[in-house]
């Protein structure tokens, strides 16, 4: 297979180029470094962790309050109105689900392309995906007028004799998101199994040994296990790869199937996917930069990793900016009155600030990433990542709120103003996300131990006898069976 020869060369090249693992690492040092974070006794947990977790937990309480109030009183606690019937709820939904996409891209697509630099960030990014999807998945349910009937969107045999209405993109969403959540969870869990076994073998605490023993599903590390693991992993990567494209395409169709001007440009699917990856990498960087600093993981998540992520961010960011330009251009080119009015309102209307802020945060702020010196400057990257996260939120604001507030009949035009409950729910989901994330980095190996060890072996010996990347061996095995 074509895959088998190329990565070999690439592995050879890596030695001459900057390696994806810091100097002086051995198989044991990798194991100890990563497992130590988990095996630290509870009382020795770093104070910073408690501080971070505490803040996140407080925000989680805000989330509980916001949701309780919402369920008791109804979606009218938000600022939504007619015509702007979707606002922060759907903005946050799209924002969160977009953030998840970097995880899937790193774990699946970079695996298929045998990119070694995914190894130290994939576990972390996948966890981020899961938590982001968990936050995202709440919004379509909570934004319903009667959220207790959300299951009517799921096809199940019932006495009404009713199916969901399959022409609606919201029904497609149900499938897109549930599939995405399920595949992401499986991918993450299967990748964890060999590491669970490592944890089981490393720990001296009998309780942890028991727990990790169960979680590792009887993994003994035999050749047969590895063989099956690799096949399962590559199959899941194969399943996940189309999901990177499909999930956000379908979410873009939530808008694109409508008649609302500003919602129906045909560029939406690719533009949304690029935006998702863009936002996702920004979030990965936003999380990775402090964590590698506090836990001293500079040897695993090197500047080269960060550089690569910045490059992807720049590339996808430019696609997104292209999307903005095309939206404006096509509206002008079409000459359709409502489209022209939309552009007029987007650029100069009541919510125009959001549009210009968007151009600044997503368009201008990423331009310094062209320079290598910026891509290696952590504070600069951190600020740019924050800017992108804000920008991508604003992008959805511009698309959803601006378009709805001024559509066809001027008699119905109305602005949208958020209420404190809009803000509380959004901040609350941030709390949920970071609570889960802090628990994750404390209780599970946040970097893939065995993949890092493979990488170390490969880098140290310059050979790829042991693995040459999980991917192509499994591909060969699959090939042999035919």
């Amino acid at each position, binding site marked *: 297979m074509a895959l088998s020869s190329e990565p070999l060369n690439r592995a050879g090249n890596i030695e001459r180029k900057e390696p994806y693992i810091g100097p002086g690492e051995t198989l044991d040092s990798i194991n100890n470094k990563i497992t130590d974070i988990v095996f630290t006794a509870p009382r020795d947990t770093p104070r910073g962790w408690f501080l971070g977790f505490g803040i996140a937990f407080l925000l989680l309480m805000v989330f509980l309050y916001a949701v309780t109030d919402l369920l008791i*009183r*109804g*979606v*009218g*606690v938000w*600022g*939504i*109105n*007619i*015509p*702007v*019937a*979707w606002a922060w709820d759907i903005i946050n939904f799209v924002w969160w689900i977009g953030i998840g996409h970097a995880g899937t891209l790193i774990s699946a697509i970079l695996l298929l392309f045998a990119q070694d630099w995914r190894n130290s960030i994939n576990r972390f990014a996948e966890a981020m995906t899961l938590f982001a999807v968990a936050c995202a998945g709440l919004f379509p349910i909570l*934004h*319903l*007028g*009667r*959220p207790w*009937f*959300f299951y*009517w*969107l799921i096809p199940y045999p019932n006495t009404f004799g*009713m*199916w*969901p*209405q399959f*022409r*609606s*993109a*919201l*029904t497609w969403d*149900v499938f897109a998101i549930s599939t995405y959540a399920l595949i992401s969870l499986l991918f993450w869990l299967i990748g964890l199994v060999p590491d669970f076994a490592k944890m089981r073998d490393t720990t001296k605490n009998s309780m942890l040994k028991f727990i990790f023993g169960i979680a590792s599903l009887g993994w003994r590390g035999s050749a047969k296990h590895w063989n099956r693991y690799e096949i399962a992993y590559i199959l899941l990567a194969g399943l996940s790869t189309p999901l990177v494209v499909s999930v956000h395409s379908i979410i873009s169709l*939530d808008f694109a*199937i*409508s*008649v*609302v001007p500003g919602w129906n440009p045909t560029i939406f699917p690719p533009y949304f996917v690029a935006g998702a990856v863009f936002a996702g990498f920004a979030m990965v960087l936003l999380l990775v930069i402090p964590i590698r600093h506090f836990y001293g993981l500079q040897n695993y998540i090197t500047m080269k990793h960060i550089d690569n992520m910045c490059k992807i961010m720049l590339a996808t960011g430019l696609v997104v900016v292209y999307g903005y330009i095309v939206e404006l251009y096509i509206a002008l080119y079409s000459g359709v009155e409502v489209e022209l009015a939309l552009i007029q309102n987007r650029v100069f209307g009541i919510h125009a600030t959001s549009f210009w802020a968007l151009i600044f945060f997503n368009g201008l702020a990423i331009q310094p990433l062209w320079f290598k010196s910026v891509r290696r400057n952590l504070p600069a990257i951190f600020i740019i990542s924050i800017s992108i996260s804000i920008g991508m939120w604003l992008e959805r604001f511009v698309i959803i709120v601006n378009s*709805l507030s001024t*559509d*066809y*009949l*001027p*008699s*119905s*035009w*109305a602005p949208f103003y958020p209420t404190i409950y809009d803000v509380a729910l959004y901040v609350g989901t941030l709390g949920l996300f970071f609570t889960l994330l802090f628990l994750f980095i404390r209780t599970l190996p946040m970097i893939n131990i065995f993949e890092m060890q493979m990488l170390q072996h490969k880098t140290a010996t310059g050979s790829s006898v042991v693995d040459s990347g999980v991917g192509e061996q499994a591909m060969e095995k699959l090939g042999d069976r035919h």
Partner: protein
Amino acid sequence: MVIDLNSCVGCNACVVACQSENNIPIVGKQQVSMGREMHWLRIDRYYGGDLDDPVMYRQPMACVHCEKAPCELVCPVAATVHDHEGLNVMVYNRCVGTKYCSNNCPYKVRRFNFLWYSDDVTPSYKLLRNPDVTVRSRGVMEKCTYCLQRIKDVQHQAAVEQRELEANEVVTACQQACPTNAIIFGDINNPESDVVQLKELPLNYAVLGELNVFPRTTYLAQVINPNPALRNDVGIEYSFEEHHGGHGGEESGGEGDNHSE
């Protein structure tokens, strides 16, 4: 339905009739200021002419019951559908409140129960309501039904008397209340009904017809006298009695006002 913009004087009687006929909740000042009034039927106003001396054009606007309704396409639970008579109906019990139908409605005539607007607990309010119309709960979308309960009532009556429905027999609440007979309702399949004849007039037009949603409510455009000496749509002080005639309604653009009816 046909609405004759030459006859409409913008008196709002239809709005009130609709409100009392269809148990439409009154949401109060604060909710209205947030853009959440529940009127199924509203009178859109557009202004033309000089800023100092504007002319107002009126257009009663309710659900136009599109033949190819954009709202139906996007509802994930099939809560808004066409019935066998071609009405675009809301199934309140099925509605989960995604609100997508409202977003996708080019006429923005759908109304949503953002909060529990209908007080169905206070005993004295129970006598206030029309027993033939469902009281909608929180989280449900609603809109003009073409007074479905009146259509059914007349149909039942005809069935009891074992006869066909007569032309123009169904009278909607807004139509009944209109002092100038600007609103005309009927069966577009019955050639004898008034709507069919009105829809054949050259003045007949569909609002946003270019979207190909085929609205069943159409309008008869206002007719203006082109003689500048007789032109009565610009440059005169607007007064209720004087202002008849006017301007072709469709592109009677100008500044839109914000939902303050």
